């Protein structure tokens, strides 16, 4: 299976709050919120952590098989990428400093 890396999209502000995450598009002020599992994935969206490791973290926290966690994470990432909240790459994303504006 090819490895994937994820990082926040451009022009986003985000913060962890009460175990969840709130994200705002600075372009149109649209707000998004992520639940605890989504927040766990978002925390791994640093451009350097392989998706395999993010999935392993999910399996450590929740009673779920690796296959289920991987499938759900892939669906979730695809949805966020479709909304411009995440960028996905087959290799590490090294220039996240210009993109990342939040603190987790």
């Amino acid at each position: 299976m090819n490895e994937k890396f994820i990082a926040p999209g451009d022009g986003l502000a985000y913060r962890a709050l009460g175990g969840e995450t709130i994200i705002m598009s600075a372009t149109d002020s649209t707000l998004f919120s992520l639940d605890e599992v989504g927040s766990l994935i978002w925390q791994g969206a640093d451009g350097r952590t392989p998706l395999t490791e993010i999935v392993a973290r999910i399996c450590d926290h929740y009673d779920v098989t690796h296959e289920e966690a991987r499938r759900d994470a892939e669906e979730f990432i695809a949805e966020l990428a479709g909304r411009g909240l995440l960028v996905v790459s087959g290799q590490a994303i090294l220039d996240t400093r210009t993109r990342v504006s939040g603190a987790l």
Partner: protein
Amino acid sequence: MDAERSLRQLDESSVHAPRGVTVEIGGVAIHLRPSRPDFDEVISKRYSGFLNSSAPAAYKFDILLQNPSQAPDADLRLLNCDPLWRLERGDFRAEWDSQSRRGWVRQAANPYSIDTVLRIVHSLILAEQGGFLLHASSLVRNGRAFLFAGISGAGKTTISRLAPPDAVLLTDEISYVRRTGTEYRAYGTPFAGELEKSGANVSAPVSAVYLLEKGSENRIGAVEPLAAARSLLRNILFFARDHDLVKRLFDSAVEFVSQVRVSRLVFTPDTRVWELIG
């Protein structure tokens, strides 16, 4: 830059400021210098209670008066060419240099145009200081400020009218919130809503924020931090879509809800609702 040149030209040749008026809102003193001395009186009347001639004005605004042009209901346009902000609406054209803290406005001789400009400039100044303007009424009771947020019709003015006599009105429309050290303070403003009455020029630490909802009974419900942040962000005045500004306001809002209690207040028009507040 052309805008900068025009700013200097106005300052040096077009505007004569025999006196001017210093308006201090939220501890921010802005010296307004109209091109005609008789407009001092219009400003003084509009901002009665918020004048402070002895305050050192760190901010200065020249008002170039001209004949009325378009109606004020035209769209407001804001453009940021850092550090310069350009503000335009049918009834005025203005520039604000956030670095030199100087600005000018070209408008007709009415208090409404400069009022809008001041709201915008204060929101920009506040954003740099971890604060914001919020669609909320606010009152002080027993030395603590309570904010009541909601869209138009949510009950901001109603809850202010129901307040007990010992409560001091800061505003029934736009609350002025700034971080000072480790706490958030709410300040009185002259920006009035339906009450058409300026707030008192006082401030107090923010004790709580209530998200207003009209109902058939009085009750308070807890709001999770994330929902609180969403509600607060919906009620913060965003005049510009500038990325840096939006991010700054976002951070301020999230920081605020992590420190200040936010609850939902369902209320019926009855003074007893104030027994729940505090």
